[in-house]
């Protein structure tokens, strides 16, 4: 196996994703088959190839910079309108620092 269940739990923790025991077992199996397939890339020597970080960019580097002018924006009621819990124009969250 390329990935133990322990490692799956570690990655799930990084991703802030709670998985059940059954999901962890299934995930280890699925990721294993996908990562094994991905190993195919090791057949290629790409050490001399520049990574493709930009798909297409035919304009000057500064072409997409916008003028520094304030434009219309949302008021806080609109911006928080989809929050599960909001009030006074703020997103409400559970207590962050526990005493």
């Amino acid at each position, binding site marked *: 196996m390329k*990935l133990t269940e322990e490692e*799956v739990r570690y*990655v*799930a923790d*990084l*991703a*802030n*994703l*709670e*998985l*059940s025991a059954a*999901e962890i077992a299934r*995930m280890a199996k*699925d*990721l294993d*088959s*996908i*990562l094994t*397939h*991905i*190993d*195919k*890339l090791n057949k*290629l020597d*790409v050490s001399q*190839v*520049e*990574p*493709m*970080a930009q*798909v*297409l960019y*035919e*304009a000057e580097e500064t*072409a*997409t910079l*916008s003028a520094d002018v304030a434009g219309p924006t*949302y008021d806080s009621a*609109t*911006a*928080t*309108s*989809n*929050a*599960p*819990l909001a009030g006074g124009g703020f*997103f409400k*969250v*559970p*207590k*962050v620092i*526990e005493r």
Partner: protein
Amino acid sequence: MDIPKLTIPEIQKGLRTRQFSAVELAGEALRFAQAENPKTNAYLIFSEERAQAAARRVDEQLARGEEPGPLAGVPAAVKDVIVTKGLRTTCGSRLLEHFIPPYDATAVTRLEQAGGVIIGKTNCDEFAMGSSNENSAYGPVRNPAALDRVPGGSSGGSAAVVAQGTAVVSLGSDTGGSIRQPASFCGAVGVTPTYGRVSRYGLVAFASSLDHIGPFSRTVHESALLLNTIAGRDPLDATSAFAPVPDYRESLDQGVRGLRIGLPKEYFAGLASDSGGQIHKGIELLKKLGCEFAEVSLPHTEYAVPCYYIICTAEASSNLARYDGIRYTMRSKNATTLSEAYRKTRGEGFGAECKRRIMLGTYVLSAGYYDAYYLKAQRVRALIAQDFRNVFQNVDALITPVSPFPAFKLGEKLDDPLQMYLSDIYTITGDLAGVPCMSVPCGKTSEGLPVGMQILTKHFDEPGMFRVAAAFERAGGFEV
């Protein structure tokens, strides 16, 4: 009015000769779509009020003697990963069941400015992740050509409504084939334009270096017309291209005599015989029309699937981090701390495929693995893009299959994610290279299942792509 077969030219003529009003047409189209929808589950949400308001605007403009736009009164559907102001946008996810966006996507704004009438939002795989539409939290879409089969994915609903006749055109999104593959499964025209050709402002992000918005329709002309209206630079999307937008309709009548077309040999091995047979019939037809064919090679094709599934999952794991139980409608009822709010909301809200991709993406980006996976995949992507640049020095277009097989049965491939990923082989290369590509109908298998033929051209050569597609359509290629 024959609603399921209406074309844009017929609608324009009908409106301008006062055969019907846009409001009447919108009402009829909505009634038909609502009556037919239980067969396929292609629409998730109908937007009666918005449609009536858009149709009224068209009627008022016509009454005042003003030009309401090239899509005046045209009933259109929008994939539910594209945001619509005030209209629920779920992304096929439980997490966004009650999400009401405060703004419109640029493509939606442009569609309505051209007179289009949005009648509803279409079902799709959750956050556009999937090749069968079975990953929707709101149930799968059934293929209108064979109701026990999948419509393809992830834009399964947008392909199905056009094929079913419950919309004249629709918008979809394509990251690894999500427009072309469902178009091919349902028998529709589906277009993935050049990367950056259409603004993604308001397209809920999946994999930002691969995401595209594009049209579905029943004819080539209608896709060209829809792309005319949605393409072009948008200051709200910094990745949108500056290149001027030609009128794509001008290329439709040019014919294909003397065009050089490449057949990449890597795309014809391992092709299910029925689908392959249809593609060869399509190629024979294009030969008769005067195209010159040559076998070509895209030598890095075999690395496309692993390359794609590293890049798209890495980007997805980052893009989907925003669904944290704080900003977007759903928070787990079982969470008492902030950390639990994140973990439990995401654990309860995301479906299995989204979780798989978030996990894979997080893994390939995690400390110690970045160079081995993500950076390597970006280097391989450069080779795949170079393959296309090389081949387009010698040919004007490429013809390939869209999918190794036609629409499969619901549930048939659900248990093997790797097999599902491998079926994307012919479509993901176009997204990795960022070139324009489309699927056009190319007859049916002996079982009566639609087959799609893919046409690819170089960056920004949508006119060349439409030119081949239109000549093929005129010569009867859709029923070859």
